[in-house]
């Protein structure tokens, strides 16, 4: 009581922040408030959230509750002043709590283990006693060898009637918890670096186009400092289904007029240049270009000669080695044939690109037929040549997520250290071991083992049993305890 009175205001604040009570209050507060943000759509238009709120509170109350929650920042709550405030309190809590306890822990780690009396050793839950024949000086090696074989190194202390061997292991494991706590701060610092020195943008880049900037969510222009070009975009499907297997963009980075880097990116494999990363995010067709793209064909003449050609809608071409020619008369990005045999377009993405080609021989119209990119069996003409439809280029855009986050490595560093810290905290322990050997009246030696572990005593007990049986085996003594 007397001491409490002497506490200054600063001491009280310190104690407040050093307490685990505050920590568990913050755990509860952060967890509970976070729930709200998973129910209300964050950064969404008001109508949607009013609709959600009216499910809970009824139509009439919803708008006013919306207004209140809007004022409290619930519509973007993870960035609101009070949520950020909770995170700051949390960080202070971790720092002060660690500062309060670290000096003591450090002492426990650093200070040599004290030698203990026999009575003290017998008070440990982990204790064993063995009687060995012969004087302490004679059995000493037996005992120390057993200690070494159990995996401990020891300090030897000479005592009146014998020796004491003191060992400890894993004293530094006591720092694991602090490493874990400290890592949380590292992760938060990394997140802050990302918020202040990074950006998050988007870029829709048509095939064949170049851009020197991306766009933020608010529509601001973010200069990149180099040019990026989309050379091609393609979707691969599973078999004949419309289930996408892979989205792929072939990108080139151009700096000072030179192509400095080329990479084909897919969803889980982005491109990174000068700290800016381009992720495959989405894609689409550019409707005003739909008729203006370039058809890429590989024509294989009956005698096996291949020739690549580029054509536009309406263009005609000759097939080498024959007197046939073809003309592109129609196109569909996603062709399907209905049950009456009518061709129609079933999707506004390039799910099944197809061209209708009118074939003539010696100037005379022969027949027309659909050639489909995804169906090689439509490429073969009965006269022998093959018309391979390899791509319809220039009408799709690739949607890239463009991001710069100089803090991400700090975050990952924190992730690595928190994992290490947690694994140390839960799976390693600080173990201390004392072994006394004392001469008794009958010219025998009593071996007294005492041990403590701050975690997982059961596993340590097995070790101690092994130690005892190793000592006993050498001499055929007996164990008590």
């Amino acid at each position: 009581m007397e001491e409490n009175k002497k506490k200054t205001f600063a001491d009280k604040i310190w104690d407040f922040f050093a307490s685990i009570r505050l920590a568990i209050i913050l755990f509860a507060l952060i967890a509970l408030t976070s729930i709200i943000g998973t129910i209300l759509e964050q950064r969404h238009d008001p109508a949607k959230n009013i609709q959600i709120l009216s499910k809970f509170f009824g139509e009439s109350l919803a708008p006013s509750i919306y207004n209140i929650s809007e004022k409290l920042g619930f519509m973007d709550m993870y960035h609101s002043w009070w949520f950020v405030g909770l995170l700051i309190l949390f960080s202070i809590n971790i720092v002060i709590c660690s500062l309060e306890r670290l000096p003591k822990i450090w002492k426990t780690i650093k200070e040599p283990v004290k030698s203990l009396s026999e009575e003290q050793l017998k008070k440990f839950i982990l204790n064993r006693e063995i009687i060995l024949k012969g004087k302490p000086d004679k059995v000493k090696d037996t005992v120390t060898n057993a200690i070494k074989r159990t995996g401990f190194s020891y300090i030897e202390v000479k005592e009146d009637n014998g020796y004491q061997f003191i060992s400890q292991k894993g004293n530094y494991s006591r720092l694991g918890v602090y490493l874990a706590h400290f890592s949380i701060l590292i992760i938060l610092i990394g997140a802050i670096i990302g918020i202040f020195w990074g950006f998050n943008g988007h870029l829709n880049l048509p095939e064949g186009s170049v851009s020197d900037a991306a766009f933020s969510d608010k529509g601001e222009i973010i200069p990149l400092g180099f040019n990026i070009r989309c050379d091609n975009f393609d979707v691969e499907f599973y078999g004949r289904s419309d289930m996408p297997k892979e989205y792929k963009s072939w990108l080139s980075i151009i700096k000072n007029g030179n192509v400095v880097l080329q990479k084909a990116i897919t969803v889980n494999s982005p491109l990174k240049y000068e700290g800016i990363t381009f992720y495959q995010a989405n894609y689409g067709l550019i409707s005003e270009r739909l008729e203006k793209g370039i058809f890429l064909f590989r024509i294989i003449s009956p005698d096996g000669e291949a020739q690549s050609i580029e054509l536009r809608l309406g263009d005609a071409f000759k097939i080498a080695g024959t007197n046939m020619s073809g003309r592109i008369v129609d196109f569909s990005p996603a062709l399907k044939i209905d049950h009456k045999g009518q061709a129609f377009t079933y999707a506004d993405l390039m799910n099944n690109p197809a061209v209708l080609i009118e074939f003539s021989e010696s100037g005379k119209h022969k027949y027309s037929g659909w050639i489909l990119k995804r169906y090689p069996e439509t490429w073969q003409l009965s006269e022998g040549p093959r018309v391979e439809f390899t791509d319809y280029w220039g009408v799709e855009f690739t949607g890239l997520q463009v991001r710069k986050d100089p803090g991400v490595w700090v975050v990952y560093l924190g992730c690595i250290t928190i994992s290490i810290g947690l694994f140390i905290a839960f799976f390693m322990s600080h173990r201390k071991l004392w072994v006394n050997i004392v001469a008794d009246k009958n010219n025998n030696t009593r071996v007294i083992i005492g041990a403590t572990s701050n975690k997982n005593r059961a596993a340590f007990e097995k070790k101690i049993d092994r130690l005892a049986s190793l000592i006993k085996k050498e001499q055929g003594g007996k164990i008590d305890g």
Partner: protein
Amino acid sequence: MDSSFFFGLSTMAYILAMIVYITYLAFKKSQIGITATIVTIAGFISQTLAIVLRWKEFSDLSGMGFLRSAPLTNLYESLVFFVWCLILGYLIIEFKFKNRSFGAFITPVAGLALAFIDLSGMSKEIQPLVPALQSNWLLAHVIMSFIAYAAFALSFSTGIMYLILTTEKRTEIPYIFWATTFGIFIVILAAMAVDFLTFKVMVKPEEFIKSYMFKASFLNPSAIAKILSWLSMVAIIFITWRYGSVLKAIIEKFNITPDMLDEITYKSIAIGFPIFTLGGLIFGAIWADQAWGVYWSWDPKETWSLITWFIYAFYLHGRMMRGWRGKKVAIVSVIGFTAVIFTYLGVNLLLSGLHAYGELD
């Protein structure tokens, strides 16, 4: 013999094991106990075989390489993996604590979960992966999350058993808490069973939960059915509360002390927590970073994982506070697993987010 043959075998083995474990509880003959363990191990081996076979079937079908084809891509497969982890965890506990009484609690969960998958007609088709899901980080993320979930499931059951054993008065808050939680679990299971019987739907679980769940009971268009459902819910909770002592008497037969339950609860969480941190949160973040370019976007799934994480952090620190050890933290461990279930099912199915297996649009 294909994977479904072995799945069927393991389902039967677990249900058989449940019967043997309960017989063991009744007669306490060690031969019966050993039989129960052997049957469980047989079920486990056959389930392991089934998973490996399905893995191979998927790999052959998708042509995506072995690692990418881990059978963990949909609700069905992840439930199977969850059961596998649960049985593994149980077997470890049985050997470590030399106590079989638990089996009577865990094997029904495993057997019923597998039977439930069968009855519900959950889609068992092997489906190819959309681009965002083709990631080794995702694979590690899913595997480790489920190992952690299984550990948390154990802590949930031991937590509830601890509460049942240590509460005396029906007016105590911990008593009311476990009775209500237990009651609600029974009500939800019963309501789902009624749904199945009413609609006899053979649809994907996603569809089932979105469009049919509770439609026969709480969300029934008829007001009478609705009122009846709520009344039976109150009745079931009341019965659990009123006759909780029966449950307590059963558990007391198990030869398990509250201290042992408390220790298993802590140990499971101590194993689950670091695995969940690394696999659930960190690998999930790395995957999101690779696929979308944001390691953390506060989408509902991520946020619920974080909430779960905070609840278990609450548990770990609560244990260090005077007056919190025992019943109070046991309550926290029960709440923790409720959050796990919500993270796993609720978010995907009730709230939708980036994670609703976000296909690119």
